[in-house]
């Protein structure tokens, strides 16, 4: 029996004391030898940074396996849970310390929330070279310690957002 989903609403301006938590954006400690950084900026349709957005990632480990272990809210520094959350700063910048995702087409699944954004947005940040042709614009760029992935909510070069086919 199919039920109609509950509609979404904006995350609003006041999530900062509720959703961020200690260690939210550090899926692994930055001191770990194989730690990488995924970071970027969130922009609005005028090209201005969005300082009140929240970005979440969900990913495989380097072995390509989808983690199914608890511990994302209380990190122990050793367990890789595959989930992270980062609020953007005053300059619209977000960053995660994590591991390189593995598998045949490695990517970070990304969810975006913001004040002014009435419903969450899904996208993917592919490792360079991994994106299929039709999602080529969703390639992250390599930098010295990891990958850069900017998110443009609107306008020229608007990020390709995704919806998932229902059976």
């Amino acid at each position, binding site marked *: 029996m199919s039920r109609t989903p*509950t*509609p979404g609403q904006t995350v609003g301006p006041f999530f900062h004391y*509720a959703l961020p938590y200690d260690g939210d954006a550090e899926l692994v400690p930055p001191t770990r030898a194989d730690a990488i950084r995924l970071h970027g900026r969130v922009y609005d349709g005028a090209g201005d940074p969005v300082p009140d957005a929240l970005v979440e990632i*969900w990913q495989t480990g380097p072995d390509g396996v989808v983690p199914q272990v608890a511990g994302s809210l209380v990190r122990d520094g050793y367990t890789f849970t595959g989930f992270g959350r980062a609020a953007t700063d005053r300059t619209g910048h977000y960053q995660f310390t994590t591991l390189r995702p593995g598998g045949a087409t490695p990517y970070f699944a990304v*969810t975006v929330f913001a004040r002014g954004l009435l419903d969450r947005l899904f996208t993917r940040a592919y490792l360079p070279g991994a994106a299929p042709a039709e999602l080529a614009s969703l390639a992250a760029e390599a930098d010295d310690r990891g990958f850069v992935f900017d998110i443009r909510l609107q306008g020229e070069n608007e990020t390709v957002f*995704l919806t*998932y086919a229902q059976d």
Partner: protein
Amino acid sequence: MTETQAEISAEIAAISKEYDSAGVAETAVRRDYPPYRSSILRHPTKAAKQVDPEGLELWAPVFGQRDVDPLEADLTIQHSGEPLGERMVVTGRVTDGEGRPVRHQLVEIWQANGGGRYIHQRDQHPAPLDPNFTGMGRCLTDADGFYRFTTIKPGPYPWRNHRNAWRPAHIHFSLFGHEFTQRLVTQMYFPGDPLFALDPIYQAIVDPAARARLLATYDHDLTTPEWATGYRWDIVLTGSHRTPTEEDVEQ
């Protein structure tokens, strides 16, 4: 912030009229809803690209006992004294689009205090902060998909979308399903709020039946004598893409 409520209400009415005459039912919130001014530059203008969820997206993060202290479900015991306002219990069931319970999964809430003030530095509403109320809670759903919080009924609060703009009282909810694709952040409202018709965030769900899905119901059986009122609100996440396992279909 020069527009009046009357001007915003006229925009809301025009969109509603257009929706009624189009005759195509919508169940989701619109991201492009100009009466909510902050949405104007923050909604995508291109249609989302439909993809098949891959292996990763067919799974969701797992949260467990280690992540959430059971006491976090009671927002009235986080400080040394009792918070001011109407103590209430809110409970309900989280299911997926096929009606299966979303078990042992994280629910996060946040809200204003009884006076309509958020404990957030950007909230400059001159209503009092309550030293005994933070307004943030977490719990895991139980084996049948039920969540339950004890809290204080939030007050309505002013915001700056337009002149004399007030949000209906609400509690923010953040939910995970058993798949990445089911992630939901929304708001729960209280029945009969006089601010509903005036609020461009609530009205951004243009379909009246869809809007009603965000309304809790007062449940006197949930109200406890001389202690707390009770509200019930069930949440339905999007359909599941994964082939149901035996554990999913049992119950």
